[in-house]
């Protein structure tokens, strides 16, 4: 069931997910389109998430935005519910009560283990988005494992002292008993500055011709978990199951790439280790069980289902 409407207020609105925003020019959504989007959300009972560019909006836009309950996704140093960092350095100066998002390539990520470890005790929640996850190699996997092990050490100490920072890559799976995917096109859709609707911002960024009619989405069932042959058997519950990445890498929205699955299972297994480490010292999340498995890509064991 549709629950959220993401509204990109400008072509240069900040990207908070896997896909880069190639648009650099400022181009605000039309006021009429903005009003129409809000009206649509009100009628469909959708919570709106506005996504901002890095400049101050005209007052008339702010007035329209203020007509409805919403969440704000903003670039640093703006204030919002979700704040997207420009880089690692800006993370340290972020507001404490916001969700912080760090978009980062794998090479920089692997080189930044200590910096991230130092930041973790200071944040409430950090979402790390690896922007080139589709290029993961076996060697990357080893480095990723090392990074997650290092971050596990920090998180374990924090949790045992009663401070429970959230890191999407590790603590989400530790808390989940069922899938928590992005569900673009099923639970949320996006209104772009051109006044057209998309599954998510990435579909607009990568091809503006990929728009949809939100009332009649062809093959919408393929976006649902029950129509994803691999994912419906998978317990990497924290995985975003990004349908844009799926389509980019396998040409099908319901099929993830090998690299996505391996990265998600590496995180899953690290979360399992974190959970066990914490439980060695304290009672913690007794309802969660993460089983030991002998694969990183569910595709490799598909014949066992």
């Amino acid at each position: 069931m549709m629950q959220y409407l993401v509204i990109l207020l400008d072509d240069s609105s900040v990207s908070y997910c896997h896909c880069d925003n190639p648009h650099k020019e400022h181009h605000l959504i039309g006021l009429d389109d903005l009003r129409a989007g809000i009206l649509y959300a009100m009628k469909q009972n959708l919570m709106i998430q506005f996504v901002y560019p890095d400049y101050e909006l005209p007052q008339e836009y702010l007035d329209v935005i203020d007509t409805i309950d919403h969440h704000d996704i903003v670039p640093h140093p703006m204030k919002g519910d979700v704040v997207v960092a420009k880089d690692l350095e800006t993370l340290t100066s972020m507001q404490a009560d916001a969700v912080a998002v760090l978009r980062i390539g794998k090479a920089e990520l692997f080189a930044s283990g200590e910096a991230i470890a130092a930041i973790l005790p200071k944040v409430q929640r950090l979402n790390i988005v690896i922007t080139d996850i589709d290029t993961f190699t076996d060697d990357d996997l080893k480095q990723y494992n090392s990074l997650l092990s290092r971050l596990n050490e920090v998180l374990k100490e924090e949790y045992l002292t009663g401070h429970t920072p959230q890191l999407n890559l590790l603590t989400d799976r530790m808390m989940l008993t069922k899938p928590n995917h992005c569900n673009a096109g099923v639970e949320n859709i996006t209104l772009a500055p051109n006044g057209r609707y998309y599954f998510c911002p990435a579909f607009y960024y990568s091809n503006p011709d990929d728009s949809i009619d939100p009332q009649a989405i062809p093959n919408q069932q393929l976006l649902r978990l029950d129509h994803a042959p691999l994912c419906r058997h998978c317990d990497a519950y924290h995985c975003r199951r990004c349908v844009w990445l799926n389509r980019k890498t396998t040409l099908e929205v319901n099929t993830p790439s090998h690299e996505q699955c391996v990265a998600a299972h590496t995180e899953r297994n690290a979360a399992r280790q974190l959970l066990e480490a914490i439980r060695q010292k304290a009672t913690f999340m007794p309802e969660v069980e993460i089983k030991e498995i002998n694969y990183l890509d569910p595709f490799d064991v598909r014949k066992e289902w």
Partner: protein
Amino acid sequence: MDLYKIKDNEPAWQSGMSKNITFIVTKDCQLACKYCYLVGKNVKERMSWETAKTFVDYVLEHEDEFREESVVWDFIGGEPFLEIELIDKICDYLKLRMFELNHHWFNSYRFSFSTNGINYHTSEVQSFIKKNREHISIGITIDGTEKKHDLNRVWKQPTADANGLTQPSERGSYKDVVKNIPLWLSQFPDAGTKVTISSADIPYIKESVLHLYSLGIHQVNINVVFEDVWQEGDDARFEEQLMELADAIIDGGWYQDYACSFFSEHIGKSLDPERDNQNWCGAGRMLSVDAAGNLYPCTRFAQYSLRSKKALIIGNIKDGINENLLRPFLTLDRITQSPQKCLDCEVASGCAWCQGENYDAAQTNTIYERSTAICLMHKARVRANNYYWNKLYRKLELEGRREEFEKNERDVKPEIC
């Protein structure tokens, strides 16, 4: 005493255990059949020896990625025998390299051809057959009576259109094909022919199948086209034709030595969502290469096969296969791609689909939307099929042969694509 027998539909060689690897050696054909799904046939795209050799090297030198017990090296077109010299060279090279590499396919391979039969008698083709006799399967397509055959299987016009595409003429090809049937059957007595039924062919089904039997063809593999070509009332006409065919086969005693794939005891049953969830089509488990060196999950995904979608290329002979692009094919199942009406269908078994046609007809760029254009035709087939088996079993019962038949019946399941 001889066992009482009924001719079963023949299973394919090494069914289910072999890798099908297809060379699209040319996109040219002498014919321009009106029902042909190859909408982009042309005279320009002919495979070079360099492309074929590079592809063979790629496949044979990546033995770990191709672990099937056996291989069927398939050659199609257009018309493959237009490129018999190239094919001969490829097959020689395949044999040589499989031997040199001590490849596990060396003792388990076949060369397979689907041909229009026009060049079958030529010295080049005959010489090739003689050289590879123990490892060849050849199917000649003949659609039935001259009238039925020539309805669709016509020669192309001598010149292509402005886009380089072939166009149909009015000249039928029956006489050019039928003259080669005796030679073919003398070399491959168990060979079958493949008959395709489109809307206009329905009135000729019975006489065509019987005609093929009379030519000495014991196995008639016949199917309706998957494309959405059907007219209102076609299903009733189809059912009537199949019932007449059933009467003729049973009353004439043809069922003892001849088979028609329209009639199978395995079709028309409901399917279990878990036990019967496998994909029908073999796309993705097969591999095709074209003249440009592009790789496809099946030839039906090459551009010349597609009306409305872009080719779905999964790699090329230099870089190999992009395994991520194969994942959707290898995880496809019946439930995920089928609409609810198919899942609820009480006569679902044997209802086939073609992944390439599904892709071509889908609302979005997906292989996960099953086309149901043949729905009414399948249901008509099931009704006629039920009639066939009820009538046949009653006849056997009255003749006191039913028990004997059931005891000796082979369990032949419908072949997947």
